[in-house]
């Protein structure tokens, strides 16, 4: 009797696990197979749960008819630029805040923390005017700068934690050997924070890659427009025909790199996410 009860419990538990997995993964699975189905199969009253019949038409459409290649390139430039710039600036600031005597340290840390909670929307108008005044409206640099609003504080905050965690003896040994603080940072500390840099860089990249509000507001046409606003505004030949197959194909193209990154760096991402939040 008891073993039956236990077996039942176990079964129930695995049903729950299966439900969680299906619930999390099915929507993406559905997007993938929809992107491979020809339009008539897409709009069938009894859709198949496998990508059969199979076609690459939607992918061809996305890259040949729409400016999607350009959008993708813009996304790479903007997200990559914002990530690199935040890492460079963030490492310098975090080293000073984590390892050097710096009197207004707490004030700066609070400022950084406050910025991570900052609503993007409340500077939208101000940034819009700033970019226009500076001639940076609808440029990659303008978008990159505006993205620093959320990538930089996050990078600094997490990296300070990494720097603080390194043993003091390493630094002292370097000083005894006559190294300057800057040499110590580059030769000793930076290699040790490598994993931290990868994690923060990855999280900053994902945040920038996925950003929508600024990309929608600070770009016009396809010259600088990144993928999220492009996908959101994908239209058909008429307003009544929404090209779902192409939208799903474009969605898969932007999401696959992220999913791959997440699969490879799973452990680190989880560690970085919780470090960023729990220390807050």
């Amino acid at each position, binding site marked *: 009797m008891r073993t039956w009860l236990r077996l039942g419990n176990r079964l129930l538990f695995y049903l729950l*696990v299966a439900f969680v997995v299906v619930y999390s993964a099915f929507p993406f699975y559905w997007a993938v197979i929809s992107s491979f189905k020809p339009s008539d199969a897409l709009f069938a009253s009894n859709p198949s749960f496998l990508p059969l019949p199979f076609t690459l038409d939607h992918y061809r459409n996305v890259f040949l008819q729409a400016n999607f290649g350009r959008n993708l390139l813009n996304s790479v430039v903007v997200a990559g630029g914002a990530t690199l710039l935040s890492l460079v600036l963030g490492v310098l600031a975090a080293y000073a*805040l984590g390892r*050097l005597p710096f009197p207004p340290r707490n004030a700066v840390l609070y400022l950084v923390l406050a910025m991570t*909670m900052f609503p993007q929307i409340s500077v939208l108008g101000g940034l819009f005017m700033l970019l226009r005044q500076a001639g940076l409206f609808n440029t990659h640099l303008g978008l990159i*700068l505006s993205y620093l609003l959320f990538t930089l504080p996050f990078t600094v905050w997490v990296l300070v934690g990494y720097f603080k965690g390194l043993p003091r003896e390493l630094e002292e040994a370097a000083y005894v050997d006559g190294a300057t603080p800057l040499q110590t940072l580059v030769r000793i500390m930076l290699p040790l924070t490598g994993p931290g840099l990868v994690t923060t860089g990855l999280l900053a990249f994902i945040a920038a890659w996925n950003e929508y*509000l600024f990309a929608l507001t600070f770009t016009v046409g396809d010259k600088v427009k990144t993928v999220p606003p492009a996908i959101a505004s994908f239209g058909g030949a008429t307003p009544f025909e929404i090209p779902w197959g192409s939208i799903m194909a474009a969605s898969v193209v932007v999401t696959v790199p992220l999913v791959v990154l*997440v699969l490879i760096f799973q452990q680190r991402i989880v560690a970085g*996410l919780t470090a960023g939040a729990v220390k807050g």
Partner: protein
Amino acid sequence: MLTQRQVRLAWALVLPTLLVVVLVAGYPLAQVFYWSFFRADIAFVEPPEFVGFKNYLYLLQDPDFRQALWNTVKFTVISVSLETLLGLAIALVIHSNFKGRGLVRTAILIPWAIPTVVSAKMWQWMLHDVYGVINILGVKLGFLSQKVAFLARPELVLPAIIAVDVWKTTPFMALLLLAGLQLIPEELYEAASIDGATRWQQFWTITLPLLTPALVVALIFRTLDALRVFDVIFVMSGVNPATRTLAVYNRQTLIDFQDLGYGSAISVAILLLIFLFVVVYMRTLGREALR
């Protein structure tokens, strides 16, 4: 001697970051505060005119603003509550030892990694009134008596969008709570089992109290995100008054209506709302968590 040089170096290293902060946050924010006291359009077609608190007075009686505030509150309370409960359940599942927990953890990272715009589009397609898989399966399996236009019926749009947000952000909640669960020492449970406490009792007397700090942090992060929600709402239903949140209304005023003065006043209101929320949370839950 060395210290003084180090302090100077520290300033030099922090300075670029401070400059960026001033440039992309400080200056725009000052502009927003400044223009909220003016009647002005964002292209300055007409010369701006100082109007004092007029924009703020209008804010108090603007029915659209009130509706947006109410939508935002509804969205925040419902989505964050559901995400917390579901996230806690998933965290507890992953935390218990079983074969394949790595797979589950990977699976729940998928919604987190997907761009919000993409997840909104994916769900829009799944919720399609005629060809959407949810309608087709729902009718076939008997959950729905007929196909439903989830995104066209005013009373169903917000719930549908909340469901999408819950799907997308529950993983984040679950991961934060999982990290909290892993901090609870195993011995506590062993001791409790020896004393004859049931699983249920262990949950209420050990897990929940010790998880409170992680729970509070996760709640704060999620609530802050939900209060400024824009992407999922705007992609799924545009500026539809039934779902228009403060952020959507704010962008519409600033960019579509080009109303710099009133738009800035709304921005300040959002900022105040979030500030107020942070203070209240810190005062109540935060203190509890730190105890």
